[in-house]
């Protein structure tokens, strides 16, 4: 398969996976646990791409995923974009300073990111919305803990999927010099 085509397949797989995770959170979790707060399944993918990919690729994926989130919520796209922008900046700064591959690092950063997401979301709501977001401390706390815990187990799966569909750069043609 051509490199560009592989790249499209890779993008499509993760685009599709974001949809699946959003549906899992809004439909499957609701059917099983009712209105009990759920882990932010799709946010784990956001953190993964923010940390693991090159800058331009991570930007494209992160903003695409925010657009997908907005389809599943009443929250405005603007507030979501602004909230995730802070998260993206955090990921960008962190990965350029401290980075070691592995589930522990990923879990740690996911925990910090999801906490930041909730804090920034409330601040943004106070600053930009006419009707302020309720605090919902227990719901948010559960979401932070559950997402962080889930990240540890999700990391190997996402990594495997990423490697499985990773577009490889075409290797250089090696010729022989005669004479």
């Amino acid at each position, binding site marked *: 398969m051509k490199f560009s085509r592989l790249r499209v397949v890779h993008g499509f797989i993760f685009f599709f996976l974001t949809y699946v995770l*959003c*549906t899992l*959170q*809004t*439909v499957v979790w*609701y*059917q099983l646990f*009712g*209105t009990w*707060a*759920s882990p932010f399944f*799709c946010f784990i993918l956001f953190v993964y791409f923010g940390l693991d990919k090159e800058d331009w690729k991570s930007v494209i994926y992160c903003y695409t995923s925010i657009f997908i*989130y907005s389809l*599943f*919520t*009443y*929250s405005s796209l603007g507030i979501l974009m602004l909230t995730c922008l802070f998260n993206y900046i955090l990921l960008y700064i962190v990965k350029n300073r401290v980075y070691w591959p592995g589930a522990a690092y990923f879990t740690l950063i996911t925990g910090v990111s999801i906490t930041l997401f909730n804090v920034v*979301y409330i601040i943004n*709501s106070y600053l930009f919305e006419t*009707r*302020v*977001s*309720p605090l*919902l401390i227990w*719901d*948010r706390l559960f*979401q932070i803990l559950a997402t962080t815990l889930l990240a540890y187990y999700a990391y190997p799966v996402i990594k495997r999927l990423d490697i499985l569909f990773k577009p490889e750069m075409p290797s250089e043609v090696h010729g022989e010099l005669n004479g």
Partner: protein
Amino acid sequence: MNFLNINIKKLIFFVFVLVMPLITINMEEKQNDSEWFKQPFSWLAGHFQDFFYNYSAGVKTTTGQYLNLIHIKKQNENLKHQNQELATRLLKFEEINQENERLKQLLTFRESTKMDLIAAQVIARDLIPDHSTITINKGTEDGLKEGQAVMTLQGALGYVFKPLQKTSHILLMTDRYAVIDGVIQRSRAHGIVEGKGKTGAVLKYVERTEDVRPGDLVVTGGLDNIFPKGFPIAIVESAEKKQISVSLKVDLKPLVDSAKVEEVFVVLNAKNQDMSELIPPTETKN
């Protein structure tokens, strides 16, 4: 001394052999006399038989039980499996029964009103926890449009804000962005019902002079062109007159617990139905 050269021992033996049956025959003829002789032997025989019978019966039962154990174990597993299956079926049956009851009530309600209603099931909820929205399994292909009222038999629930082809997103009245025109049923005091998160709603812009008491029923006013007039929304939890405010602070408890809603009605066409004709005025609870 032994003139005839007879073996005395042999003779005694033969005599004994011949005489014993004769004695026995003779004794049997006189049954009453022989009882004393037979009794201890009979007693012993009886006990022996009884003992051996019990012993062999015990062995037979134990062996039988042991052999049966394998069969019982298999049977037990089968019965357990059957029991589980039946329990699951029973649970399913109860669930269907409850659903049937709910649908029956919905049908009765639908028949008692002249509005065009469409029943739908709740399939999902909002991705972000601070918004109270749900998703139903009916969309534009079923005739749903933005701004249509969504209700249950207990009362108003919310309205359609994003209809898609097969599903629709509903903004619940408890969401902070939800606004419904409301009236206190008893005193006809007008206000605007606004959501305040998961817990409830508030009735805003009610004049200080209005008569509002805890327990009053709040119904839809019909001015928002979303809900039919007179449909129950919430119960007044508390009404407070603040010193500096021109309006009352009225806290409401929605009649519908959105966390437990499974089936809803979407009002396709209210046909100017006044629900107060169907719902009789209620007295203040306090």
